[in-house]
């Protein structure tokens, strides 16, 4: 199907897919098996200019939007969402600086992220603060020209590998959600260390670690925006990034469909290719239809979110992209394993990895349950403003 993309947008897709075909597909099984961080591929993505996607041109990036980011991560996800997540998490880590960073912070941190010389990471989740982000306990106390951070962040993507971290911490415990702030912390800052690398069900090429702040001292200029803006920064960042999680789901599901159709055309049972059986055709038809629906939603939503500075329903739309496409990814990967049968369950074929990998899409960057809360609350507010009645 034609989505009327520009020459530049199509080129981004082409370049990202070339990296999938020529590089990622050759190493993904090994990286998964060894739980090895994909540094070589990160170098390829840097050489391809892709880390600059949504960093403004003034800071060395390509100055593009949510749609372009979605197009790239969708292609990368056809290769491996462990790798695609590593890539996307750097953009997520940079976004608070792009949106609310001072000129000085932007100049210092965005160019190396755009060049892919340094990876970024986004650090919000804590052992006691997952879906309930207001429960974060990491403290930042201003002392003279410095902030001193204490606390622990958990399950931080790119933790230990990234050089630049956007870290959320409480600056005023009396103000609840309005007491949180966001800071740039660099690998190597005094008092900043890493905990164990997590062992995961899927996306095993990506690194997930604890961040430990033990009297970590940083200059006061590392504050992003103003004190108390932490939650606004986090939510605005998620509005930009969540369609990208949906795009990861679309890419993963597309890979599952591509493998399933090819396999079904070749696999002979009862003297015929199994694609000649309606039961298989119907499975494939549902998979393809769901993927196209998810892709259409994400591209439309991304175009809409890029078209305005601050759309009022951004959180709702971004949440819809995330839940719909991540649910599709899990369903499609599950069906792909079923179509390949015993082969699908074996590690010799790539679909068992797709199934293991897909599950994270419903969990990270806000669980799908939290996304549905966002959509539900927004509907309640929207309809509260409408004067017309629909029930006669």
């Amino acid at each position, binding site marked *: 199907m034609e989505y009327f993309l520009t020459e*530049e947008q199509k*080129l*981004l897709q082409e*370049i990202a897919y*070339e*990296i999938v075909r*020529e*590089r990622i597909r050759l190493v993904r099984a090994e990286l998964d098996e060894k739980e090895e961080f994909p540094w070589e591929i990160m170098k*390829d993505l840097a*050489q*391809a*200019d*892709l880390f600059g996607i949504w960093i403004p041109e003034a800071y060395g990036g*390509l100055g593009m939007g949510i749609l372009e980011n979605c197009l790239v991560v969708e292609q990368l996800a056809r290769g491996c969402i462990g790798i695609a997540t590593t890539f996307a998490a750097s953009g997520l880590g940079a976004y608070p600086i792009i949106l609310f960073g001072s000129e000085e912070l932007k100049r210092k941190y965005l160019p190396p992220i755009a060049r892919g010389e340094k990876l970024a990471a986004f650090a919000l989740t804590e052992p006691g603060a997952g879906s309930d982000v207001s429960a974060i306990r990491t403290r930042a106390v201003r002392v003279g020209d410095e902030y001193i951070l204490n606390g622990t962040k958990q399950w931080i993507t790119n933790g230990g590998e990234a050089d630049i971290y956007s870290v959320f911490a409480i600056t005023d415990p009396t103000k609840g959600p309005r007491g949180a702030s966001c800071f740039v912390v660099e690998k190597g800052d005094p008092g900043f260390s890493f905990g164990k690398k997590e062992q995961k069900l899927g996306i095993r090429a990506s690194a997930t670690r604890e961040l430990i702040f033990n009297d970590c001292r940083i200059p006061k200029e590392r504050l992003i925006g103003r004190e108390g803006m932490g939650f606004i920064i986090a939510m605005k960042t998620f509005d930009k990034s969540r369609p990208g999680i949906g795009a990861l789901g679309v890419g993963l599901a597309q890979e599952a469909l591509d493998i399933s159709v090819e396999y079904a055309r070749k696999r002979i049972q009862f003297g015929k290719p199994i694609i000649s059986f309606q039961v298989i055709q119907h499975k494939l038809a549902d998979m393809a239809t769901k993927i196209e629906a998810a892709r259409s939603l994400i591209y439309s939503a991304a175009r809409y979110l890029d078209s305005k500075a601050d759309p009022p329903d951004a959180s709702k739309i971004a949440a819809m992209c995330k839940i719909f496409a991540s649910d599709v990814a899990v369903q499609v990967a599950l069906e792909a394993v079923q179509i390949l049968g015993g082969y699908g369950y074996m590690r010799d074929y790539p679909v068992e990895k797709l199934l293991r990998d897909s599950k994270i899409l419903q969990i990270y960057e806000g669980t799908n349950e939290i996304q549905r809360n966002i959509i539900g609350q927004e509907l309640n507010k929207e309809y509260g403003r409408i004067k017309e009645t629909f029930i006669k």
Partner: protein
Amino acid sequence: MHIVVCVKQVPETQNVRIDPTTNTLIRQGVASILNPFDHFALEAAFRIKDMNRESVKVTVLTMGPPQAKEVLVDALSRGADHAVLLSDRAFAGADTWATSYTLSAAIRKMGDVDLVICGKQAIDGDTAQVGPELATLLDIPYATYVSRIEFVEPRVLKVIRQTDEGTALWKIPLPALLTVLKDVGRLRVRSYRATLRARRYDITVWDAADLGLSENTVGLKGSFTQVIKVFSPQRAKERVMIEGSVQEQAARLYELLKEQGVPGL
């Protein structure tokens, strides 16, 4: 510093056809690719450019029909600064000498070239002659089968060569020519910015007149060798087991080689 990388568009080896009258490759209608060994030549140049992106310029040079622009666009998309195509009907049918002669005229015309890098050979002709011939015509030193390149002084390279006799470490002053092996590094991926630029880049095309070459010195007319026939050799599978003591085996082997007319025996 100006680096010229010589590349060749070669037919995809699956579909090679030979013209029965000229005994040369039929290139029309066959998918062309960048000679795989030239990937490494490009990467070697890009790695030198990585050391100083401002002062190092990489020009990619090829000789061929207009469709050879495709491989130049590909090289530009991966980071080459400039591209030159040598194209003229008179260049057709060139052997390695005529090819080297034409390439050398183009490099002389550029004037300021410090380093020429070639792949070790092309996968169609497999001669590995053009690199050394080109260096000879340009009257510059050369090193073949290079696996590693380092700068020891601003104008002196240290290269490691892999030869049948072993590994050689050479110092070589610039200007120079290198032919490189895959060890110098896998060719990098296309870059978004470079590809956009490549699509709009106006490739320089020089013909025989631009190079000041007479038609008798280029192409088939300028070639000292002509391909009489191309065929797959018949391989007679004959195996002889020689037994006995080492001395007896050596003596028998000597006789057999002599019977076969091996020169020098």
